[in-house]
C-alpha cells in the first residue's frame, strides 16, 4: 500500500534531549523507524553513535525500549529477546540497530550467525562509512579514496558489499535504504516487519562530521549518492532482487549524475586523484552490473 507522509503516525520517537550532532542522519533514521513501526519496536543497540545519541540516563532522548549491549553482540541479544517474546506470546518487532562497525566488522560473525539461523529480527545497519563515534576511523564500509583519521592519504581498499553478502545468506528479506528517501525506507521497514525470519536493511547515512560537509546538506549528499548511482536502492524478497523505484531511473547510465559531483561535496574525498576517481566510476558500473544480473 502506498504511504503518504500525511498518513504517518504523529507520535514522536525522537525527543528533545537527544545528543546527536547537527545534521545527524541516525536521528533521521530513528524517526523513520518510529513512523514505520511505532510502539511495536524494541531496539537493541551496540556500541556506536546511537549509544550517545539517545542522551543521558536516567533520561532518554528516544521514545523506544532500548537495550544497550556490547559492540559485537547485538544480533545474538536480539535473537534471545525475540525468542522470549515469542514464548510469552507478546507482539514485538525486535530491531538490532547497529553502525557499520557493529554490523560489517566487529559484529559480523554475530550478524552472519543470526542470519544463517534465520532468527526472527530486523537488523538495520546505519552505515556512515567509518567509525564515527570514536572519531572517524576507517571501516570495511569506508569507500575507496576516502580520508579518515586512519587513512590520511585516502582509503586504499574498496567498500565491502555487505547487502550482497547478506543476500547470499538466502534470508527472507534484504534491502538497501537511504535517509534521503524516507517513504522507501518506511515501506521496506513495514514489509520487513510482516516477514518471519531474519531481515536485513542497510541504511546509507551520510555523516556531516566524518564526511566533511555542512550539516545542512545531509539529505542533499544522501540523494546525490543515489542519483550518481554510488548507492543503489533495492530489495530482495526470498532472493528475488528488484531495484527500488527511486533508483530505477539510474539503470540507464546516462541518467546518472557524475560521480565527481557526489565526491566534490565532501571534504573526505578532497585528495582523490583522477586515477582513483576513474576506479570509483568503474566500481559503480561494476556494482550495477552485478546487481542487475541478480535482478534478472
Amino acid at each position: 500500500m502506498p504511504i503518504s507522509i500525511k498518513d504517518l503516525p504523529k507520535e514522536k520517537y525522537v525527543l528533545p534531549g537527544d545528543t546527536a550532532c547537527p545534521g545527524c542522519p541516525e536521528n533521521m533514521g530513528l524517526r523513520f523507524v518510529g513512523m514505520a513501526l511505532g510502539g511495536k519496536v524494541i531496539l537493541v543497540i551496540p556500541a556506536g553513535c546511537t549509544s550517545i545519541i539517545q542522551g543521558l540516563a536516567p533520561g532518554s532522548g528516544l521514545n523506544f525500549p532500548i537495550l544497550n549491549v556490547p559492540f559485537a553482540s547485538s544480533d545474538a541479544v536480539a535473537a534471545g529477546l525475540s525468542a522470549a517474546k515469542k514464548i510469552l506470546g507478546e507482539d514485538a518487532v525486535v530491531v538490532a540497530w547497529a553502525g557499520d562497525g557493529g554490523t560489517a566488522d566487529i559484529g559480523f560473525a554475530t550478524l552472519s550467525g543470526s542470519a544463517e539461523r534465520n532468527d526472527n529480527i530486523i537488523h538495520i545497519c546505519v552505515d556512515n562509512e567509518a567509525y564515527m563515534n570514536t572519531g572517524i576511523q576507517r571501516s570495511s564500509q569506508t569507500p575507496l579514496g576516502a580520508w579518515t583519521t586512519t587513512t590520511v592519504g585516502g582509503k586504499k581498499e574498496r567498500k565491502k558489499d555487505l547487502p550482497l553478502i547478506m543476500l547470499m545468506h538466502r534470508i527472507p528479506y534484504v534491502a538497501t535504504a537511504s535517509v534521503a528517501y524516507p517513504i522507501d525506507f518506511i515501506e521496506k521497514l513495514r514489509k520487513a516487519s510482516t516477514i518471519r525470519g531474519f531481515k536485513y536493511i542497510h541504511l546509507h547515512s551520510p555523516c556531516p562530521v566524518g564526511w566533511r560537509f555542512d550539516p545542512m546538506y545531509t539529505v542533499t549528499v544522501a540523494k546525490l549518492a543515489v542519483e550518481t548511482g554510488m548507492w543503489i536502492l533495492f530489495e530482495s524478497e526470498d532472493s528475488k532482487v528488484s531495484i527500488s523505484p527511486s533508483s530505477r531511473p539510474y539503470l540507464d547510465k546516462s541518467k546518472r549524475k557524475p560521480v565527481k559531483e557526489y565526491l566534490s561535496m565532501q571534504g573526505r574525498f578532497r585528495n582523490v586523484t583522477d586515477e582513483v576517481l576513474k576506479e570509483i566510476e568503474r566500481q559503480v558500473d561494476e556494482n550495477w552490473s552485478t546487481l542487475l544480473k541478480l535482478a534478472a
Partner: protein
Amino acid sequence: MVLKTLTGNYAVATAVKLARVKVVATYPITPQTTIVEKLAEMVETGELDAEMIRVESEYSAMAAVYGAASGGVRAFTATSSHGLLYMHEMLWWVAGSRMPLVMAVVTRSIGPPWNIWTDHSDIMGQRDAGWLITFSENSQETLDETLKLFRITEDERVYLPGIVTLDAFIMSHTSEPVDIPDQSLVDAFLPPRKQPYVFKAGDPIVMGNMPRDLKWNMMVREDMCRAMERAKRVIEEADELWGKLTGRKHGGLTDCYRCEDAKHFIVGMGAWTGDMRDAVDHLRDRFGLKVGLIKVRYFRPFPSEDLIKWLNNAMSVVVFDRSVSPGAEGPLYIETVSSLASSGVRSPVKNVLAGLAGVDLAPADISNVMLASVEEVEELGAFKQRVTWFYGGE
C-alpha cells in the same frame, strides 16, 4: 525421588529441565559438550519445552541468553575454558544489568598448549565480573546447586547472575548415583521467575545508556557488592530450604569437614575436596593429626566470615589452588590471607599450587603435603615458604 546414575554434565542438564528453563543457547566446547547435546535432545523430543538457539560462538551464547532473560524468561548456557574467556565481555554486561541468569562452567585449563583437563584458570579469570560462583564436589551437589542458583539469582535481594562449576572430566564425565528430585518438589522450591525489569514493546525503558552523573555509574558497582553481601544470607536460606525438602544440606558458603577440634586446616574447592576428605580421614586415623577441611563452596560471594570463624585459632593452614595469578599467588590463597589479616588472625598460611593443567593429585599426595606442612610448622612455628608448586609424588 529417583536414584539415577548420571555424569556431572547430565546432572546439569537434568537440573535445567527441572528448573523449566525456556531458552537455551550454547556453543559446544570440550568437556561441556554433553550438556549441549543432552539439552538439544531434550528440546528435540519435547522433554524440555524450550527454545534452543544454536549459536555460532560462546560470545553469542551469552548474548542470546542475556537477550532472552531481559525479555522475561528463564535462560541457561554452559561453557568451558576458552569459551568462557571468549564470553568475558558479556559476563560483565549481564552482571552490570543485574539480570538473573544461570550458567554451568566445566572448569578446564587455558592454552597454550592445548589441554582439555581441569584446572580453575578459566573461572578465576571471571571472578571480578559480578557473578556468583559456586564449586561442586560431586554430581549430586552439581544438580542441587544448579537448581538453587536459579532461586538465589532471582531473589530480589540478589538479582545477579550465577555460575555453577564442575571440574572437567573428574566430574563432567564421571558417572555417580544422583538423587533426582520430583518436578513437584522443584516447583515448590523454585517460584516463577522474578527479575528487576522486562523488555516489552510499548514500554520505553532504557538499559545501559550513559549516566548524567559518573557517581551513579560507580554506585552500580557498589550496589553489586552490596548484593553479593546480601547473597550470603540468601545462599544459606536456599540451603536450609533445600535441606528441608530433600534431606540434603551441602552447607552454605562453606562446608567444614572434621573441623570441630582441628588444629591444622586444608582449604580447597572443587572436585578434589573429595580427595581432601580422604586425606583428612587418613591423617586423623593413621597419624592422629587433628586436621580439618574447609571446602569453599562459594568463591563469590567470598566466605570471609566462615574462614575467620574456622581459622581463628588454627596452628596452620594450607590453601590448595588449582590456578595462579602470575606475579602473585593462587586466588583462593590471596583471598583467604586477606580475610584472615583483615580480622587479625595470624595463623601461618601456605599456598600449594597443584593440579594445574589437569596434573593429578591423589589423596596420598595431599596427605604427604599436610604431613610435611604440619612438621614444618610444629618445628618452626611458621612456614619457610609462602608458596610452593607441587606436581604430586614425593
